[in-house]
C-alpha cells in the first residue's frame, strides 16, 4: 500500500481533531508528537495527552463532523465550528489556516504549522489570532476585502 502524501496526512489530522475523532489519531500522529502553543508557552507531548485534552475540552466541541467538502484543489472543508481555509506548503512542512467561531460569537484565525515525519504528524505549532478592525493609518494603501470567503 503506498504511503499517503504528507499533505493528506496533515489534512486528515486536522479533520480528526476538528471532528473530535480521537480514535483516528493513532494512525495519524507520530509517536514523538509534539504540539506547541507559543502564545501560552504550552507543549503537548504524545497522542495520549492530545487525546486527553480533546476529551476534556470544557463545553466540548460542536461535534457535528464535516458538513461538506468542496473542491479538492483548494481543500475547502466546512465544519460546524471550524472552517479550513487553506493548506499551503511543500515537502514535509505545511501550514493550515482555519477560521474558528467560538460560542461567544468571537471569530479567530487558527494557524497551524505542521511537520510530517514517517508519514505521521510529528510537530505542530498553533497560533490563535483574533479578528480586528482594519487600522485607519494604513487605509490609503489597503483594500478591505473578505479574504476568507
Amino acid at each position, binding site marked *: 500500500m503506498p504511503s499517503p502524501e504528507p499533505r493528506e496526512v496533515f489534512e486528515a489530522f486536522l479533520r480528526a481533531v476538528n471532528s473530535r475523532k480521537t480514535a483516528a489519531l493513532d494512525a495519524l500522529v507520530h509517536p514523538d508528537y509534539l504540539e506547541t502553543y507559543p502564545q501560552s508557552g504550552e507543549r503537548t507531548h504524545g497522542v495520549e495527552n492530545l487525546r*486527553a485534552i480533546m476529551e476534556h475540552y470544557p463545553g466540548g466541541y460542536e461535534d457535528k463532523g464535516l458538513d461538506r467538502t468542496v473542491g479538492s484543489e483548494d481543500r475547502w472543508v466546512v465544519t460546524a465550528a471550524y472552517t479550513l481555509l487553506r493548506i499551503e506548503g511543500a515537502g514535509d512542512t505545511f501550514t493550515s489556516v482555519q477560521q474558528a467561531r467560538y460560542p461567544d460569537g468571537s471569530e479567530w484565525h487558527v494557524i497551524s504549522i505542521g511537520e510530517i515525519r514517517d508519514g505521521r504528524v510529528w510537530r505542530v505549532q498553533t497560533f490563535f489570532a483574533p479578528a480586528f478592525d482594519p487600522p485607519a493609518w494604513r487605509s490609503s494603501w489597503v483594500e478591505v*476585502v473578505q479574504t476568507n470567503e
Partner: protein
Amino acid sequence: MNEAAARELIGDHFSWGGRDEARASRIYADDAVLEFPQGGERIRGKANIQAMRTAYPASLDFENRQTIGGGDVWVNQYTIRYDGRPSHVVGIMEFRDGLVVRETIYFSDSWEPPEWRAEWVEPIAPPAS
C-alpha cells in the same frame, strides 16, 4: 525555490525591516500581494507595501524566531515589538521566480495557560514575554 536562496532573502528582509523599508521590500515581486486576514485587508503591489510600512506609526523591532518550509512556501514565525509591546506573528510567504508574490500575516498576543489542561501539557517559557 532553493532553500539557501529563500533563507538568505528572508534573513535580509527581517534584518532591514523597521529600518530601511526599501531594502526590506526587495524580497517582493512588483505585483506582490500582502494580506492581513484578521482585518480583511489586502495591499497590492510592492510600492504600496513599502509605502505602508514606511508610514508605520510606531517603532518596530523584529526578532525572527523560526523560518520553516519547502519549495515555494516559507513560513516565518517572529516577534514584533511595537514600542516594546510584543506580538507573536506568523507570515506565510509564497514565492514565484525567486520573489514573494503573496504574503499572509497573522498577529497574536500571549495568554495564560488554562488550568483545566495543565496535567497534560508541559510548560515552556513564553518566548515573547
